[in-house]
Every structure is written in structure tokens, then in C-alpha cells.
């Protein structure tokens, strides 16, 4: 039956198949392994045929899942066999059994090298395949140049060359430092002219890897890729054998579009136009057909085209077309298409401003969340998570909660984590947040990490209004019969702190609350008991005048646990018992917990970290980096750097002993008491404080110095300074920073420059506030909206925003509210009218108060000159008459600029393009020159055409000659200076670690008389 079968092998396989059970199989395998081992030992009688047969048997046994720990040597040695049949087996079995780290592989390097450089084509193929599949560093070191030669060789057949391309790809991917690809751009460009589609497919894979590593070097490949795509998509000149179900090599189409996604933009307007036409053709021309393979292949191409459109972003019209298509896909029955529709919608959220249009599909997405297919549920969950904002958080989170009842068990963890994060991030009101988390604990307690309930405690502690509500809820949940232990913890804690606020309600007397909590004690573990004891102590303290019966009850419990084997429980019992007999003094010691300092939620940080882990050097990530998210939702960000440790230790002590500095009487008993207090309250506060501190300090907080010592130091400090100051939080001011206490997140200058080039994004962010901007420009008018988002759970007060407009701008800011409520975002429209050309910059003087911090920041506003430009490509017939009519200064100015940041011409074109100055290619006969034009709008000048010519010197890229012409002398001058600022090399501030965006703008030069100039230092 076997075609070129080996009888021995077939018999063995039959034997295995005839085994009745696993045990028989193992016996048969062991017997065979013993046999092979013996035969290999006395190698003398072994014919090549035998060797081949045994090596195959080994591979078979290995596939069955048995350990094969010998015979690798024999497999590798077959590679050196002189004849093809043995060599082939040696190569294939070796590449299946071994991986690149295997020592035996070294034995083969020489043979493999000889086969690759040798004249035998079939040997070359075998060797290239092995290296392409498992070649490691040593192969790269000794072989890369030879493989490169094979790929380019005109005497090699396509069979060898396509293998060489993929072999080289592996070597480069694994060891980019070893494989020298300098100067490969030209060769890749040549390779893209390849007629053999097999070689072209392999070469395209290689190009994807090269471009993802360094797109700048390969820009000459870009037009070729577009050409290949056009040829395939339009089915021009594609051999029959390379069409798959009538579709010209869908794989090559996909790969080509993948390669294109690594180029940040496409500058050449012709190439761009061609590409968009092809993409449009693909988007419009893909129909659903009956044949599943044809359908899959055409949709593989379609989804890649969608990804490319998302990446190029530019055509707003196509983007909405994409959203519409995806909206259609997520509603179809075919599960693959639905899955991909959801997945791509999520991707689109990252790269484009489509939140609003995607929200329209919310109901459909929620239906998918309940799909029986867990893969689809996961995509729907991710999408809901991504599209959630303050407007739909309530709906989405409630859906997630509801779904938790029926969801696949493996989804519970992810679901509850995401629900908790969304609830925290977008809670429209805090009582809702508490509700959600308590429901989550009730439904999926096992999956709720401690962080989550620590946070509830933190929110409740920090918000006085919330406390009675939380206490009532806690009582309600604890009243239920079977309660998750986490629920007992959080409820007991909240009731201990705040149940006295409910005292007047029926069923909420201290006695009743106590018995509700105490009912749970027999069923909880030792880690929860200390929390319950603390709650009892607090309840007792709040019962004024003391209730004898309750007191005796609680004392009995304390006494009972005085001899508990668990040290924590024992200590609490002893200390609470002693304390509660001290009468009124206990009021201070067991007073309510102080507010927690605000900081990044560990939960959200964790989510961000997890997200950062998953994406590697993927196209998606690169795309996302090239286009920073312009989402304006209030999100917490990573702090730019960890704040100094000592500060937090100081803070620690403040949290631990809240009231003791206020005690006026410093008698010795008091001192003893407060030390005891420090000790005690440290224990007492561990559950919640473990969280806030663990965010930044990890175990430090828990293993920190005992309360007494810290507290002693603290009182020493407070003795020197004024006590209340320390307590009310100014202790977190790092000494070296002085009065400027708030560290902005992200670089303000970088943010400003980014916003000069785009119309929405974050202008400023610090731990308390995020200021976002969204702008629309029409001719000489602009409308900006400032989004002021309070990131905290406490209000920001004394909010003031003043605009300091330069003389050429008329700016009107609508009313800015004095207070921004917790976690709210307010929008303040700002109207701008441009009166005349000028490069001066408007400044926003913004201040707010948080706690005791008065924060004042001055921010440059991106209402800059280029916002009033409109790119205007002109033809030669339009350009030259105007250029000639504007002769000489002051309408036409020429300047030789030196110290230019060296850049290639396309890069410069791209830079101008990003400032809305349109390049007209081909107008200037000299290829080293650029001719560009734009329209400038202001109230005084109205629309006015500006013409630009830049003559570069290919021998010296640091200098160029620039000529500007327009009908307005001020405009000519200002625009000339503006462009110069963009071109001149200025040591820029540390740039964001993006993979070289096309035009990272240098800091514009600001003349010393500019009011904004003084501010740059501050910023």
C-alpha cells in the first residue's frame, strides 16, 4: 500500500495500530526501541536502508509521544550520506527531532555548508530547508552570505531561490545582528521584479521581515509592492496555477499588503492614488460566494486590505466604509467572518477615531458576547472593553455582570477582571461602582483578586457621601445565607468602619450589626478572622454609651482568641481587649481610617502591563505607535517614573498614625498609648493599606518597620514642623522638587508638537487631570474643544483657565466650571479666529487645586500657523505664471539655510506634507528640488496662495536654498521662518520611543521677544 514503503516500518505501524490499549502499545514501543538501540550499537552490519528505516521508526515513536533519547546521532549522520535517499531522510528527521539549540546539530554544520555551496541542486534544497526550519546562530554566522548569493543568483532555478529566500528570512529573523543586510534595499527592489510567483511569494515574506525591522531603508520597494498588488488584485497576467479558486495568489496579496503596513505613509501621490484605487476595488469587489475556500481566500485579502486602510488612515471616507463593512460582518452567521469582524473592529478602535460609529453596533456586539463559541465571546468581550467609555459604561458593565451567570467557566476570570476595570475607570457615580464590585464578588468571588476589594474600601474611605450607602449595602449582602469569604471581608471591614452611620435605621443597631458579622465567623478562614476582630473593636468603640451586653459578648470573643494559635489573631485579640478597657481614649485610637492618597490603580496598571506583554514587534503595535491614540477618555497612565521611595515611607507613617499628632497632651501615658496605637493601627489597617502601598512599594509596605518606630520618627518631625501640615498630606511633596509638586505625565513639549500635526490628542496630563484637545479648522477659523478630565475620586476645585492669545489670534473660551466632579470630564469650547499671519503661539494658563496642592501650568496651544493652511497641489500651468508675477522682495524671499537637519528628499516632502503644504512633484526639472504650494487663510488676507521652492544640495544635506512667494509680505516672511524652523536641526527633547515616525518635528524656534519663549523653559 505504501508507495515507496519500507516494509519493516509498515509492519511496525500496523502493530502499533493493532494494540488494544496504551499498555500494549508501550510494550511494543519499548521492544522496538530496544531493537533499534541494539542495531545502532553494533553499527557494522547496518545498511543505509536499515539506518533509514530505524530513523523513521524513531520519528514515528517520537510522534506517538514517547521519549526517544538516543539515535539522534544516527539521524544527523545520515545527512552526510553520499546518496540522496539517505541524505533526504537525515535532513528531514533531524529537522523534526531536534531544535536549534541541540548540540548534535553542530556536527552537521560542515556538511550542510558544503551542500549549500555545492553544485548538487537537490542537496542544496535539502540543506536550505533544514536551515530555514531549525537553523540557529552558528548557521547564520557561517552561511548567511552563501544563502544571500543563492537567492540572487541568476543561474539557480526558482526551486532553489525560493528556499534561499525563506532560509535567509529565518536567519535574519533569529539573528538580525549576524546577517548583514546593508545595501539590500536595491536587491530587494530587484527581487520584486521576479516573474516566478513562487520566488516572489518567498521574497515578499523576506521583505516583510526586513521592512518591519527598518522601513526607511526599503522605501524604494514601496512602489513595487503597490504594483504587484495592483497586478494581482486586478488579475493581470497571473498564471493559472497561481490562482486559487479563481483568486490570484491570495497569499501573495496578503503578504504584499502586510509589507505596506510597515511604511508609515505613502508620499508619492501617484503611488498613493493607485494603492487607494486598488484597496477600494478590494473593499467593494469582495462578495460572499458559496464556495467556502473561495470565500475564505477573498476575505483573507479583504481583511488585510482593511488593516492597510486603517493604517493609512488618511481617507476618512474609506474609514467609514470600513466601519460599515465590519458592521455587516459582525452580524453574519458565518462564524469566521463574525469573529474577524469583531477582532478588526477592536483593532480599528486603537488606530482611528471611530468610537462613535462603532457604538452604533453595541447591541449586535452584546449578542456575540453570548455566542456559544468561546472564541467569538472573547472577541466581543475585548471589543466591548475597548469601546467602553463614560457614556456606555453602565450598559456594558451590566451586560458583563449578567453574562457572568451563564458564561463559560474559563471566561470568568477575564470577564470579572474587565468588568471591574471598566467599573473603576468609567463609573458615572461611585455608588454604582460599589454595587458592581459587590455583585462581582458575589458572582465570581474566586476570581476577584484582593486588589479589587481593597479598591472598594479605598473609594468608600475617600468619599464621605458614599459611606452610609456602602454600609447599608454591606449589611444587605452579609444578611444573605451563603456568602463568599471575600464578601465577608469587605463587608465586615465596611461595617466596622461605617455601620455607626446607619445606627438609626431599623435592624442596624450595633448589636444587630455585630451579630450579622459574627454569624459568619465559624465559616471563615484564619486570614479573615483578624478583620472580623477589628470590626468588632470598632463597633464596640462606636457604641456610646457603652452597651454592657454587647461589650461582654465581644470581650468574651477577644478572650477566647487570646490563646489562638495564629499569632495575628492572638495579637489582635489581646490588644483590642486591652484597648477596649481604656474607655474614652479608645475613640482616638480606633478612629475612622484617614483618606487614602490618590495613585494609579494597581488594577488598571496590571491590565496595561498585560496588554504590553502580549503584543510584540507586531505590525499592529507599530501601527498603534505611529498613530498615538487620540482617545480622550479619562484614563490613568503609567507614572513616568517611580516617585522617590523615602517620600512614601514618610507617607506610610502618616497613614499609620492619623490622629496622634493632634493630641495636645504629651503626657507619658499618652505617648505610650500612641505608640501602642501606631502598632495597633498598623495591624488594623493592613488590608486596605496593603493595596495602596503595594502599588508602588510591593512587599515593603507590609514588611516595613513596626509602627512604633516609624511613628516615633514621625512625631519627631511633626515636633519640628507644624503637625497638621504633615498630616494633611503635604508630606508627599518630594523635597528636591520644591513647590512644583505635580509631575506631568509624558513630555509636554512632545505632546504639543504632536498636536501641531494632528487635531486631537492629549495636551497635558498629570496624576490628577488630563487635558485633551479636539480641533476643527475651517479656513481662518478654528474651533477647539478642551476636555478637562478629573482622574480622581475627589473633586478638583478652583479650576481656572485663562487664554493668553497672541496679537494675531482672536480667541474666546467658553465658561470653565470652577469645580470638576470626581471622574468627570468637562468640555470647554474655544473659538479661534486668525486675523493675520504670525508664528506667535497662544498660551493656556491653567490652574486647579487638589487637596492642598495648588497647581498652575502654562501650556502652549496648538493653534499654530500651519492650522490655517490648506494644501493646494498646482499644475505647471498654474504655478509658473504666479511664480514669475511675484518677483523679488518683499513678496518673494530667498534664503540659504544652513544647519538643516539632514534628511532625504522624500522625508522632507513628507514633513512639508504634514504641515499641510502640498508637494507638486515633477514641476521642477531638477530632482533635488521640491516645489510646493498651499493656501493660507486669515481674516485680513483672506485666502492667499503661497508658493515654495526648496533647492537641496545632494552633496551637503545640511544646507539648502529656500524661496517663498505670496501676495502678502508678512505671510511670505512668516511662512519662510516657519518652514525654516521645521527644517533646521535643533537638539530636540527626548522623543517618544516610536519607530521613527516620518517627521518628528523639531522644537520650533521662538524668537526671544515672544511671550511664549519665556514659557518654554517652564514647560
Amino acid at each position, binding site marked *: 500500500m*505504501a*508507495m*515507496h514503503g*519500507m*516494509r*519493516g516500518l509498515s509492519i511496525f505501524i500496523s502493530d502499533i*495500530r493493532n494494540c488494544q490499549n496504551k499498555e500494549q502499545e508501550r510494550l511494543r514501543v519499548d521492544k522496538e526501541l530496544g531493537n533499534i538501540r541494539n542495531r545502532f550499537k553494533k553499527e557494522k552490519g547496518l*545498511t*543505509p*536502508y536499515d539506518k533509514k528505516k530505524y530513523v*523513521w521508526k524513531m520519528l514515528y515513536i517520537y*510522534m*506517538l*509521544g514517547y*521519549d526517544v533519547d538516543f539515535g539522534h546521532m544516527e539521524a544527523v549522520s545520515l545527512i552526510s550520506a553520499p546518496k540522496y535517499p539517505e541524505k*533526504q*531522510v537525515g535532513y*528531514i528527521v533531524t529537522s*523534526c527531532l531536534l*531544535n*536549534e*539549540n541541540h548540540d548534535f546539530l553542530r556536527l552537521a554544520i560542515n556538511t550542510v555548508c558544503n551542500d549549500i555551496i555545492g553544485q548538487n541542486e*537537490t542537496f542544496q534544497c535539502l540543506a536550505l*530547508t533544514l536551515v530555514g*526550519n*531549525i537553523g540557529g546562530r552558528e548557521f547564520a554566522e557561517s552561511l548567511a552570505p552563501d544563502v544571500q548569493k543563492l537567492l540572487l543568483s541568476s543561474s539557480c532555478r526558482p526551486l532553489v531561490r525560493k*528556499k534561499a529566500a*525563506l*532560509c535567509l528570512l*529565518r536567519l535574519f*529573523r533569529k539573528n538580525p545582528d549576524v546577517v548583514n543586510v546593508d545595501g539590500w534595499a536595491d536587491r530587494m527592489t530587484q527581487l520584486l521584479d521576479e516573474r516566478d*510567483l*513562487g520566488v516572489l*511569494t*518567498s521574497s515578499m*515574506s523576506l521583505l516583510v521581515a526586513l521592512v518591519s525591522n527598518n522601513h526607511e531603508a526599503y522605501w524604494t520597494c514601496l512602489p513595487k509592492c503597490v504594483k504587484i498588488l495592483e497586478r494581482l488584485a486586478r488579475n493581470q497576467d497571473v*498564471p493559472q*496555477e*497561481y490562482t*486559487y479558486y479563481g483568486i490570484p495568489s*491570495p*497569499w501573495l496579496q*496578503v503578504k504584499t499588503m*502586510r509589507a505596506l503596513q510597515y511604511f508609515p505613509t505613502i508620499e508619492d501621490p501617484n503611488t498613493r492614488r493607485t494603492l487607494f484605487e486598488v484597496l477600494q476595488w478590494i473593499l467593494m469587489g469582495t462578495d460572499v460566494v458559496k464556495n467556502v475556500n473561495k470565500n*475564505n*481566500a477573498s476575505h*483573507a485579502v479583504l*481583511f*488585510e486590505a482593511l488593516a492597510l486602510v486603517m493604517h493609512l488612515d488618511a481617507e476618512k471616507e474609506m474609514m467609514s466604509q470600513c466601519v460599515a463593512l465590519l458592521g455587516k460582518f459582525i452580524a453574519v452567521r458565518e*462564524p*469566521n467572518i463574525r*469573529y*474577524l469582524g469583531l477582532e478588526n473592529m477592536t483593532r480599528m478602535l486603537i488606530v482611528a477615531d471611530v468610537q462613535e460609529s462603532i457604538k452604533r453596533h453595541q447591541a449586535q456586539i452584546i449578542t456575540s458576547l453570548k455566542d*456559544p*463559541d468561546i*472564541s467569538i465571546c472573547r472577541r466581543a468581550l475585548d471589543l466591548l472593553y475597548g469601546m467602553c467609555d463614560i457614556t456606555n459604561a453602565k450598559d456594558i458593565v451590566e451586560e458583563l455582570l449578567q453574562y457572568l451567570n451563564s458564561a463559560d467557566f474559563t471566561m470568568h476570570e477575564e470577564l470579572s477582571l474587565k468588568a471591574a476595570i471598566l467599573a473603576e475607570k468609567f463609573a458615572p457615580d461611585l455608588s454604582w461602582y460599589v454595587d458592581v464590585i459587590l455583585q462581582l464578588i458575589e458572582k465570581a468571588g474566586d476570581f476577584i483578586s484582593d486588589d479589587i476589594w481593597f479598591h472598594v474600601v479605598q473609594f468608600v474611605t475617600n468619599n464621605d457621601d458614599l459611606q452610609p450607602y456602602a454600609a447599608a449595602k454591606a449589611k444587605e449582602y452579609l444578611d444573605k445565607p451563603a456568602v463568599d469569604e471575600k464578601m465577608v471581608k469587605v463587608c465586615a471591614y465596611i461595617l466596622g468602619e461605617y455601620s455607626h452611620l446607619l445606627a438609626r435605621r431599623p435592624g442596624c443597631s450595633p448589636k444587630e450589626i455585630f451579630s450579622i458579622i459574627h454569624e459568619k465567623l465559624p465559616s471563615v478562614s484564619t486570614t479573615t478572622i483578624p478583620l472580623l476582630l477589628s470590626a468588632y473593636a470598632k463597633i464596640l468603640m462606636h457604641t456610646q454609651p457603652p452597651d454592657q451586653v454587647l461589650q461582654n459578648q465581644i470581650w468574651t470573643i477577644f478572650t477566647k482568641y487570646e490563646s489562638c494559635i495564629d499569632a495575628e489573631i492572638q495579637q489582635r485579640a489581646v490588644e483590642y481587649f486591652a484597648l477596649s478597657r481604656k474607655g474614652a481614649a479608645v475613640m482616638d485610637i480606633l478612629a475612622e481610617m484617614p483618606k487614602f492618597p490618590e495613585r494609579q490603580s494597581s488594577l488598571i496598571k496590571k491590565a496595561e502591563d498585560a496588554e504590553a506583554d*502580549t*503584543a510584540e514587534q*507586531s*505590525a499592529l503595535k507599530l501601527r498603534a505607535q505611529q498613530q498615538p491614540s487620540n482617545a480622550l477618555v479619562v484614563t490613568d497612565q503609567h507614572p513616568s517614573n517611580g516617585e522617590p521611595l523615602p517620600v512614601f515611607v514618610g507617607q506610610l507613617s502618616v497613614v499609620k498614625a492619623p490622629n496622634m499628632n493632634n493630641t495636645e497632651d504629651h503626657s507619658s501615658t499618652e505617648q505610650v498609648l500612641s505608640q501602642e496605637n501606631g502598632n495597633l493601627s498598623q495591624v488594623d489597617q493592613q488590608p486596605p493599606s496593603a493595596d495602596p502601598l503595594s502599588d508602588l512599594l510591593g512587599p515593603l509596605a507590609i514588611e516595613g518597620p513596626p509602627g512604633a518606630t516609624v511613628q516615633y520618627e514621625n512625631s519627631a518631625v511633626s515636633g519640628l514642623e507644624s503637625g497638621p501640615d504633615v498630616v494633611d498630606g503635604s508630606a508627599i511633596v518630594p523635597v528636591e522638587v520644591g513647590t512644583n509638586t505635580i509631575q506631568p505625565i509624558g513630555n509636554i513639549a512632545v505632546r504639543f508638537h504632536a498636536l501641531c500635526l494632528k487635531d486631537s490628542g492629549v495636551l497635558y496630563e498629570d496624576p490628577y487631570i488630563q487635558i485633551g484637545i479636539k480641533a476643527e479648522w475651517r479656513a481662518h477659523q478654528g474651533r477647539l474643544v478642551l476636555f478637562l478630565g478629573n482622574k480622581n475620586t475627589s473633586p478638583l476645585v478652583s479650576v481656572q483657565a485663562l487664554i493668553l492669545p497672541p496679537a494675531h489670534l482672536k480667541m474666546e473660551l467658553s465658561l470653565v466650571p470652577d469645580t470638576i466632579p470626581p471622574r468627570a470630564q468637562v468640555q470647554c469650547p474655544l473659538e479661534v479666529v486668525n486675523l493675520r499671519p504670525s508664528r506667535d503661539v497662544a498660551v493656556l494658563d491653567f490652574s486647579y487645586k487638589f487637596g492642598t496642592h495648588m497647581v498652575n501650568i502654562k501650556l502652549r496651544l496648538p493653534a499654530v500657523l500651519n492650522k490655517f493652511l490648506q494644501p493646494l497641489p498646482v499644475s505647471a500651468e498654474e504655478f509658473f505664471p504666479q511664480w514669475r508675477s511675484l518677483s523679488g522682495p518683499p513678496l518673494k524671499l530667498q534664503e540659504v539655510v544652513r544647519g538643516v537637519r539632514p534628511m532625504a528628499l522624500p522625508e522632507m516632502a513628507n514633513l512639508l506634507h504634514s504641515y499641510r503644504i502640498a508637494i507638486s512633484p515633477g514641476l521642477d526639472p531638477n530632482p533635488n528640488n521640491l516645489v510646493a504650494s498651499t493656501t493660507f487663510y486669515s481674516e485680513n488676507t483672506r485666502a492667499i496662495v503661497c508658493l515654495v521652492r526648496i533647492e537641496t544640495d545632494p552633496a551637503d544635506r545640511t544646507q539648502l536654498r529656500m524661496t517663498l512667494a505670496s501676495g502678502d509680505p508678512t505671510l511670505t516672511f512668516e511662512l519662510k521662518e516657519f518652514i525654516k524652523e521645521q527644517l533646521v536641526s535643533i537638539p530636540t527633547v527626548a522623543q517618544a520611543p516610536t519607530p521613527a515616525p516620518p517627521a518628528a518635528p523639531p522644537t520650533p524656534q521662538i524668537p526671544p521677544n515672544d511671550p511664549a519663549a519665556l514659557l518654554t523653559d517652564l514647560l
Partner: protein
Amino acid sequence: MIHFVLLISRQGKVRLTKWYSTYSKKERSKVLRELSGVILTRGPRLCNFVEWRGLKVVYKRYASLYFCMCIDPDGNELEILEIIHHYVEVLDRYFGSVCELDLIYNFHKAYYILDEILISGELQESSKRTVVRSVAAQDSLVEAAKEETGSTISNIIAHAAK
């Protein structure tokens, strides 16, 4: 890129494994164990993609055999699904309406053919004709070698055994 290719029967028997990313022996058996658990238990009429450990597995069932390929999360799933089908079509053309038994007794052929379709986890050749032609060329090389050494004892034994 494709990290690995697995062929697993409905009963969980492994029919082919090919690893393009570096996995140790231990990791390989762990992957096989976990993925057979995930994929074989999936019901019919679900999508062909499974998310697993931050990667994506594209799979398709042909009769009693599951073909699985693992890719990066941002890979193009449908493209991979059709690479699977392309492989199956080539197998079909080579064996003439292929069945699981063909792949059991000629598992080495399945490897040869896969090597002509994928290298380094990337598609090497999308023309079925070209693939089948180069596999046939290899077969004839093996045959030729056999005839050439027809007189050696090994081959006498081999022929006798046939």
C-alpha cells in the same frame, strides 16, 4: 509566521508535528496535550480559530483529522486556513483522494510535502502543480538510487522483504 503545524486525529493521536519556532521537548508535549484538549472538544459550526496562550491556532477538521497551525495574534487567520486547505489539496493530489490511513503509513511523505509548502513557517509555494512536481522529482531520485544500487545486499533484502 506559523509557529507550528499539528495533525491530530479525532482520538487525539498525533499524525504529524512540525515546529518552526524553538520549543523544547517538554514544551512540545505540553502544547500537544493542551491543544488537543482545546481543539478536539470544540463543537461543530464554530469558528476555526482558537485563542491560546496569547497566540492563535487556526484549525480545520477533514474527516477524522484535525489540521492545526499556530500563528501570532495579529496574523491573518483566513490566509492560514487556506494554507491548510492548500496542503490538504496537495496531499489529495499526491495520494489520490487522501485518507487518514495514507498519512499514517506514509507519514514521511506528509513531511516531504509539507517541506515543499512551508519553510521557516512561511508559505513557500502556492502552485499545487509545482509542489507535486518537485515531490515527484524527489521520489524518482530515490527510485533511481535504488536501481543503481540494485545489486547490493541491502536492496536484495529490501526487495525480498517486499
